[in-house]
């Protein structure tokens, strides 16, 4: 088959269209990361936007990030923290078992565990400065601090500020502003 030569107008349009690469801020991503990498990045960000009381996390202490029941996210978190620090502190990531030394974690991410187990864990660390994070339904409502969920393919999160305060954790206003739902504090909504 033959082909007509496109008008010079069309060609100019094409060249202009494809060669213009001006940098600006971005939006919208597609299928190029795994859910566990993305969750690990959220977990890291939650830690970045939280302040622990000095008595449990001195400026020179190692930050203890604990993962329960989700080894892919543990692996992803391991990769993320490599060569990174949290306010000058090195980060250690460890996989923990139910009921063992959870109170010595600064951050505890749990996934793939039953609601009964979650209730027990949340009760065990109640009042202790442990930033609890999970992707289990009703986690924040049931006494956890940060709950991730997927909506329209993207990760959203809820924050229970009452529990955070009780645990003497200071969450940044930025984190609170981005939460889908917030329990406690000014501007609490949707519970």
């Amino acid at each position, binding site marked *: 088959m033959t082909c007509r030569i496109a008008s010079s107008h069309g060609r100019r349009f094409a060249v202009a269209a494809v060669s213009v690469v001006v940098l600006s801020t971005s939006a*919208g991503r597609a299928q190029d990361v795994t859910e566990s990498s993305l969750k690990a990045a959220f977990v890291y960000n939650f830690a970045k936007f939280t302040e622990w009381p000095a008595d449990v996390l001195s400026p020179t202490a190692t930050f203890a990030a604990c993962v329960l029941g989700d080894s892919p996210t543990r692996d992803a978190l391991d990769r993320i923290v490599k060569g990174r620090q949290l306010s000058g502190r090195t980060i250690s990531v460890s996989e923990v078992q139910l009921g063992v030394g959870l109170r010595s974690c600064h951050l505890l991410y749990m996934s793939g565990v039953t609601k009964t187990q979650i209730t027990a864990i949340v009760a065990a660390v109640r009042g202790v400065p442990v930033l609890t994070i999970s992707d289990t339904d009703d986690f924040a409502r049931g006494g956890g601090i940060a709950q991730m969920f997927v909506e329209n393919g993207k990760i959203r999160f809820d924050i229970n500020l009452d529990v955070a305060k009780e645990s003497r954790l200071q969450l940044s206003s930025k984190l609170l502003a981005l939460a889908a739902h917030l329990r406690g504090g000014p501007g609490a909504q949707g519970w």
Partner: protein
Amino acid sequence: MIKIRRGRVALVLVLLLAAAPRAAAQAPLPDLSLEELMTMDAGRVFGASVRLQPVTEAPASVSFITAEEIARYGYRTLADILRGVRGMYVTNDRNFSFMGTRGFGRPGDYNSRILLLVNGHRVNDNVFGQAEVGAEFGMDPALFERVEIIRGPASSLYGDSAFFAVVNVITRSGASLDGASLSVDGGTLGTRMARASAGRRFADGVDVAVAGTYEASAGVNQLYFPEFDTPDTNHGIAEGLDGERAGQVYGQVSFKNFTFTGAYGRRQKDVPTASFGTLFNEHHPPEQTTDRHTLVDAEYSRTIGANHVTIRASFDQFSYDGIYPFLGETPGVPLVGINSVLGTSWTAEARLTRALPGRQLLTAGGVFIDNVNQDQGLRYVGPVGQVFLIDHSSVQQAVYVQDEIKLTRWLIANGGLRYDAYQDFQRVTPRAALIAIPSSNQSFKYLFGQAFRAPNQYERNAFYFGEATGSLRPESISTHELVWERYLHDWLRTSVSAYWYKAAGLITQVPDPSTFLATTYVNGQDVVAKGLELEAQMRLGAGFQGLVSYSLQRAHDVETSQTLVNSPEQMMKLRLSVPGPSKRSFVSAEVLAMSSRRTLAGNTLSPTATANVTITAPIGPAFMLVGSARNLFNAEYADPVSDQNLQDAITQNGRTLRIGVTWKFLSK
């Protein structure tokens, strides 16, 4: 001449690739802001296992297209979306769009080997079994949240039609629409479109979405068909007979555990090709088809303890009217045939997903379908006469079970089985998968599956094709597939997939002088195919994203060893979206290339490459300007068509342009 065209396509490729390194180096995930992380897709798929799961764990090779991509690439039909998907191609006979995949795109088949779902509910009609993917689909892509493409057989979950692939369209909620919008656009070929949509999730959790779209196009004003080039038939020129008009309404309400979805779409197409032996360039009346789809769907979905329960009831209605002007006895007065089809069905479905000891996840369900109408008729007007009328109805039911076992931390076994009972036959179809996930960013899958496609009511139409088609049996397929998916540095995904399938007893049209249409259907053809598909998807800094895929497929007839008709051996697709000159604007381009295809008459069509470009640019906070050019370089190419046409191949549209504006208001 063709060299020039290829050269130009290569130029676009080079320019786009050259642009890549100019984008800033990709920031690692943890260096992205929370806002940016919140725009990233978590990569979950529903349709592979009738529950949300990570793509890496799904027992299939999966692609999905998001609302963001639909907007950026200016996709106006489901067919536009599917054209850009690895291993898929769409042919068009200026009446319907037909989807080909895995080297199989037999002209004259009504897309009945692809299962089309809307929010997980089957929408292939119950007469032709057709998955309508052009404007005839009846829903506007602007209302798609995402489209999941699940490759390979899935009859173990869905039964009939889940033969080569499942396409699941997930529609947008009120929260996703977030506010009201008005869009208008216009373009070449007399195209104009208007859309209004509104949606919100209220504080009490009630979510409401409503939308309506009207679109019309005059089409190509003069189409030349050399097969009709005689003085009696306007020298082969069909004038003003390529018009299309489509109207769609959509609504969804959800609260607590209930979701109600309703949609109605109507598409009318003038047919310029004089198919089915109709009069060429006839305007009184023109050959014309009208397709209508109605969907009303109510779903109750709830987690009770360790169980997730879904109960669903749906009403589907499909109707089709074809107007066919034939040569009449009085000169100048055509004999007009009107073909009417009505397909109505009620579906009730229940499903339970439950975690079991030993890290198992069990899904079990049952479906009952009452096909109230599967009616077909043909009548003539001028003079009036009913040629035939078939009032048919049937019921079918099925039960299925699927179990996923996490054998170790890195190994998943997945098995499924479904029993389908029709009035004339039963079918049991299995699927099995072994998925190894040695690290969080890599997975290997071995997939085995079978599927069937039941003879549809059109093929069983005794008036058209004789009584013998009443004894047609379901056709079947067995597929083996290996998939390797890899996620590198949190910005690059690569996928390699190799498959082999054998399809047996394919329902095939053969000549039969004794029937009304002089053809009939038999369980005739066996096809063996193997293929390799490669894909890389990347996200660089500054909003730059791209996807490149290559597929190689060899599908041949077992008896003749010939490559199938309309089966390109190679396809390459490139999609790139880069930030445009102004803030939040994007320039998105795709190049779709396909190797040569054989036609029914044994001719070979040249390789084709087409390019599409869309620019989206916000004007202030409330307006968005969209400009699109399809087939930018005006490449001339044709698609193979069925023997319903005198033509062996039908030339496709050259360059078309559209420009439009969307006004968004009342957003939170």
